């Protein structure tokens, strides 16, 4: 996303400019519309949604749907709101992100500065693992988690997310460290510095940008995961996405659209905040994940 706009073309007439801006604005509306709908309708009483215009602002503003979604809406059989699941997600995301990022950093360091016969193969295996459809691991994973006594626990989910995040975290750090001058590492080696000393003193201090990219990438992926959550979690470990789906798609009772919208925003909030605060790093992660090598 760097570099200035190209010096091309379409200098054209005023009319061309107007058309360009119109199209750009129409697409802005398209992308913002669902967020607008969720937000306005989460602040309306239910009968206002049922009887009326989804695109209108609330006539009677209310924050009750938000309170319901957070603390007392019926999810599954329990009227707990989304709060306990939000907390489950936090306890799942934080360790999974930190462990997979730390391992990724060390792996990237080894693969670029201490490569050995066969390390290229290891990297290839890690890289390919980024793209497998997770359906392929569901059955054996369920069994292994059971055997380890981790079925239905947050620790089990942390393990799962750490393992399947390793490919990307390693990829990010490897590509970043590849551009780091190897001479510095060799010089430190001659001065008698060891493996970890070199990592801590020389590479780690300049790793902040890639660490931020990796952490944001992992945070977004793990927070937004649904498949592993729905397959391996129990009440004490069900993450936010699964709880939201239970809230919205439970077949019993009145459909409280306003509560669903408030819940959806609550589930989106952490990643949305990360995106707003550090969108540049978020995009960099996306691009690094898409364009390898």
């Amino acid at each position: 996303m760097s570099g200035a706009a190209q010096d091309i073309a379409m200098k054209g007439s005023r009319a061309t400019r107007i058309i360009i801006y119109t199209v750009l604005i129409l697409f802005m509306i398209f992308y913002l519309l669902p967020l607008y709908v969720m937000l306005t309708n989460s602040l309306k009483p239910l009968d206002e949604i049922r009887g009326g215009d989804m695109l209108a602002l609330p006539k009677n503003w209310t924050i009750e749907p938000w309170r319901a979604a957070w603390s007392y809406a019926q999810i599954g059989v329990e009227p707990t709101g989304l709060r306990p699941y939000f907390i489950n997600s936090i306890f799942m995301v934080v360790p999974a992100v930190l462990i997979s990022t730390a391992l990724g950093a060390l792996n990237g360091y080894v693969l670029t500065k201490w490569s050995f016969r066969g390390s290229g193969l290891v990297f290839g295996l890690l890289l390919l693992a980024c793209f497998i459809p997770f359906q392929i691991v569901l059955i054996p994973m369920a069994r292994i988690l059971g055997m380890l006594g981790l079925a239905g626990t947050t620790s089990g989910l942390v393990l799962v997310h750490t393992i399947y995040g390793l490919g990307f975290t390693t990829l990010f750090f490897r590509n970043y460290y590849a551009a780091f001058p190897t001479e510095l590492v060799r010089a430190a080696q001659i001065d008698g510095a060891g493996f970890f000393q070199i990592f801590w003193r020389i590479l780690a201090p300049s790793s902040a940008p890639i660490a931020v990219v990796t952490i944001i990438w992992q945070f977004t992926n793990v927070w937004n995961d649904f498949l592993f959550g729905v397959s391996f979690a129990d009440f004490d470990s069900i993450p936010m996405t699964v709880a939201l789906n239970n809230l919205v798609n439970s077949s019993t009772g009145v459909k409280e659209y306003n509560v669903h919208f408030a819940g959806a925003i609550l589930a989106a909030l952490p990643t949305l905040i990360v995106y707003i605060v550090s969108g540049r790093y978020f995009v960099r992660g996306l691009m690094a994940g898409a364009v390898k090598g």
Partner: protein
Amino acid sequence: MIDRFQNWLPRMVLAPSFFLVLVFVYGFILYTGYLSMTDSKMLPSYNWVGFANYEKLFRLRHWNTAITNLAIFGILYIGISSAIGLLLAILLDQKIRAEGFIRPIYLYPMALSFIVTGTAWKWFLDPGIGLENTMHQWGWDSFQFNWIKDRNYAIYTVVIAAVWQSSGFVMAMFLAGLRGVDNEIIKAAQMDGATGIRIYRKIIIPMMRPVFLSAFVVLAHLAIKAYDLVVALTGGGPGRATELPATFMYSYTFTRNQMGVGASSAIIMLIMIFSIIVPYVYSELRSGDKR
């Protein structure tokens, strides 16, 4: 002594990740592959049945629906996302003053969970309370948009929501590509008298081929994996109208107790993804070596 330890240290650091991936990815693939050739039902069984599950799979109407849906969804999702992405990238590259404000708006859906996207579009497209009802309120009484409730059209609502989520990301990829085009080439074309749209059609878009390829690979692999969005948006329905291979695998394995068939469908998904990813990763790694 210390030197030898220092020599082994890098391998020891890499070993846990190597071991984890070897077992939990490749070992698991082999295990699932093995199960797909057994008569496993609710629990894994080790009775060898050869390719019987695959034969059964491809005779199932349910699976054929899932594959047909994947084809429709995949083609439209990749095609429309790429078209919108390219269009927006080119328009944003015309010295737009508010670019820094517009771009993040196009891209934010990528930060959301598919469950959130599914929830938002599910109710927005619901004829009872969403768009259709709203248009009626506005006085357009004949307006009809009930695709999400219609067996023949529900799959297109999955396309709409998925395009909404990822087209901004494709825009970002194309924009990065456009910004990487050498200005000299454009200047030379302008000297030859080529203008505007012609430069794009004849010179720049053909140069975007690597970006098209990357976008295709990313979108195709997302399409094959698509699961959450369908669950949240339509739940696979109405009926089975929006089943995809990922939802098929889950329901056969965990709710219909036909683990052997479920495992064989997972293997087919893996083959589909690898046939796209492996050549791509291979060529990327090779071109990386050449550099």
